[in-house]
């Protein structure tokens, strides 16, 4: 086939609707003609075909090499026939010498509709691009159900993030970025260089905490400590920030009043804890300030677990993969954590024991998942189904109020997604 291209410029459809089953109901044969996902593209392809062929008859064939559901083909054919007819091309001419061969195709980035217009020995080609479809991800659940909602998507690695009333503050390896909410989602508005002088580890980590007044933050990355505040007195409000080299320990548990217990409101004081981070690697050294009185091994993550008995021991996930409780000056191994990855965060749900540990894990799946656990004694008991994530979980932390956690997920395409994860009871 010696295809020549129609010289018409290809354009994107002005309005493209996501391809979800619910959106297709109105397009079933006989339904009232409402704007559907294919109308714009069909009209544009018909435009190009008519420009090549001119008024007359042609035989129209359609084949589907894409993931467009086969029950959509009659709708697409009808639209094409209507649009061609409106442009003077009668597409029902079975006896016609001219053929319009439409192929519904796709590539990695988009859908592509291709028309080969065959007149005698000559074939000319027209193409229309469509945005790819997307599908909603179903959530599995049993008992407590975890749900995720994407807050932010970026091509830069996000190490930690804080929600404030003046925007999102994201810690990246070399910058702190302020995101403001626009009509089309969160957009980076201001970037502050951290001034990092040392070489970062390959798996860099960071922490960001709200300042007590809520108008500022304190952030840590390897060898640097930063603080920022929002100056509402400025005409349009303004963030200021400063960073300095620092080997100080990072705050890993914030002071707050946490609740535990099912049905009974029990206030347990969660004490602030600081731990020293190894800036050349990707873990904490095991040294706390002030000391915990126990010999804690190097660890990836730690969190304070509020128990119904009123105690709040520290849970640490060691770099050797062993999870332990630090309680009464001793290290107590925790069973049932074989499926845990390196990160966990404590989520206050009010369900069951009142708070759960949400841990990352990959198991045999291609992508990581999150799962909620309770720790009635020294064994972690799963209390939710795994929540599939769309890639590798690279960071996990609890929101300041503890009622949601945030996960950073790196996709196979090296995009970073910050997801808010919440839980609901009795599902």
């Amino acid at each position, binding site marked *: *086939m*010696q*295809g020549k*291209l*129609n010289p018409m410029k*290809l354009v994107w459809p002005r309005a493209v609707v996501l391809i979800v089953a619910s959106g297709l109901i109105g397009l079933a044969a006989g339904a009232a003609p409402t704007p559907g996902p294919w109308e714009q593209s069909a009209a544009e392809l018909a435009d190009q075909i008519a420009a090549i062929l001119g008024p007359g008859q042609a035989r129209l064939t359609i084949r589907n*090499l*894409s993931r467009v559901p086969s029950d959509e083909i009659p709708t697409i054919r009808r639209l094409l026939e209507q649009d061609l007819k409106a442009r003077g091309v009668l597409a029902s001419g079975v006896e016609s010498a001219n053929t319009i061969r439409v*192929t519904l*195709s*796709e*590539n*990695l980035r*988009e*859908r*592509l509709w*291709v028309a*080969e217009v065959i007149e005698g020995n000559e074939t000319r*080609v*027209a*193409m229309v*691009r469509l945005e790819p479809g997307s599908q909603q991800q179903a959530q599995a659940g049993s008992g407590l159900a975890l749900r995720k909602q994407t807050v932010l998507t970026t*091509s830069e690695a996000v190490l930690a993030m804080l929600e404030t009333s003046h925007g999102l503050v994201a810690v990246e390896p070399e910058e702190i970025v302020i995101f403001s909410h626009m009509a089309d989602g969160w957009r980076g508005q201001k970037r502050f260089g951290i001034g990092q*002088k040392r*070489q*970062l*580890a*390959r*798996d*860099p980590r960071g922490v960001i905490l709200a300042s007590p007044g809520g108008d500022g933050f304190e952030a840590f990355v390897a060898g640097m400590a930063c603080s920022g505040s929002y100056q509402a007195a400025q005409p349009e409000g303004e963030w200021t920030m400063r960073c300095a080299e620092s080997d100080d320990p990072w705050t890993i548990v914030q002071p707050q009043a946490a609740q535990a217990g099912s049905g009974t409101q029990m206030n347990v004081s969660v004490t602030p804890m600081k731990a020293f981070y190894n800036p*050349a*690697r*990707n*873990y904490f050294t095991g040294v706390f300030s002030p000391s915990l009185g126990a010999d804690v091994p190097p660890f*990836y993550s730690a969190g304070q677990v509020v128990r119904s008995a009123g105690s709040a021991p520290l849970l640490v996930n060691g*770099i*050797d*993969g062993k999870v332990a409780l630090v309680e009464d000056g001793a290290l107590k191994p925790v069973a049932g954590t*074989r*499926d*845990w*990855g*390196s*990160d966990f965060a404590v989520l206050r749900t009010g369900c069951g024991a009142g708070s759960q540990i949400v841990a*990352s*894990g*990959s*198991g*045999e*799946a*291609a992508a*990581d998942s999150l799962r909620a656990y309770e720790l009635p004694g020294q064994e972690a008991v799963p209390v939710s189904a795994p929540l599939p994530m769309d890639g*590798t979980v690279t960071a996990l932390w609890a929101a300041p109020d503890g009622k949601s956690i945030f996960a950073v997920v790196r996709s*196979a*395409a*090296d*995009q970073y997604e910050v997801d808010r994860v919440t839980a609901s009871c009795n599902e």
Partner: protein
Amino acid sequence: MLAALALPAAARTRPHYGGTLRVEVEGDPWQQARRLIFDGLTRIGADGNVRPALAVRWESENNDHRWQFWLRTGVHFHDGSALTSAAVVESLNNLCGANCPWAAVRAVGSSVVFTGDSPMPNLPALLAGDQLLIVAGFNANGETSPMRPLIGTGAFQPEGVSNGVFSLTANDASWEGRPFLDRIEIAGHKSIRDQWLDLSVGRADLVEVPAEQLRQAREQRLTVVASPPVSLLALAVAGSGALANPNLRAAIALAVDRGALSNVIFQKQGEIAASLLPSALTGYSFLFSADRDLNKTRALRGGLTSPPLTLSTDGGEAMQLAAQRIALNLREAGFNVQTAGAPQHGDLVLLRLTLATSQPQAALESLLRAAGVATPVLASDPAGLFQAEREFLDTHTLIPLLYLPRAYAFGGRVRDLRLGPDGTPLLAGISLQDTP
């Protein structure tokens, strides 16, 4: 285009530091080592888009005739010398020959400026290529010498070669962060059989799996990671001499039985191709017919007596078998073809071209440059790319045959193995399971 990666059953933890990764390859270990030692101004991300590397940002002006790339600060070569714009210019001038995408390159402060006689819309992607990695250590004449080894800025630095094993050690000052591994050893010139044996007894951590042996590797329960089809098997046809007549070249294109190549030689692991770019990148590859048509072949020959032709290849056993099969196809169509052992010689050369990026415009220009066509690809939309492909393929100087995946098998202690967009393993990101 998802890699078929089998993951270990245990939960994933953060990567551990330390350990030595042992890699075995059939070819020259330098091919694997090069990407560990040197960096480009840009790199191609997993999503196929151009990402910053030694350059942190870039801008074009004058309709892509002028590009300015600003260098990352604080980067050092392995000998401790700073990466400067002058060093980058020296490297690019020494490495880029007559087929350069640009006409001139010069240092401007901490940036590098490229100017071209033609627009260079794909320059950021082309600068990620293996041929344009930034290298220091040339002598005054722009030559290399054994006394002055080439040095780079990469995550690993060469340690030496002993008994055919190329050793590299971690660069603690790598601008990308110190790699997890302490050391990588790459043993070259190992047969696939020996590689798989070494993997099975724990003497190797990462070995090659040729496309035609993918099925066998899975049957042997090797843990395999395979790329999407990124390696284009193509027949280069001399546009002069015995095949100066374009009808003869067109007849050759119609005489090859791609289906038999795919099914018999490459064990159905390839994607039959008649276009330069694979279907996954464009969605229009079906417009190029891959069907064998001996009637048309004869019609195009028009009774012309075929001159004696030679077909050569520089590949391994599968490539030799494929060359013999193609020669048989051509003889069936009336061509007088003999296979020759001398690589890269002859009227017909069976070769492999690698898809460097999944960004279609840059990928097409990169493939065309590899085929000796130095014209920039200006179109970015599917219609324009189709036209550019069509025009080149109508010359029948390169006949696409199959797209093949690249695959590797790895041992249980290898963590976070990912393949680059060209199907090569990203060794610098690997960590080992059993390191504390």
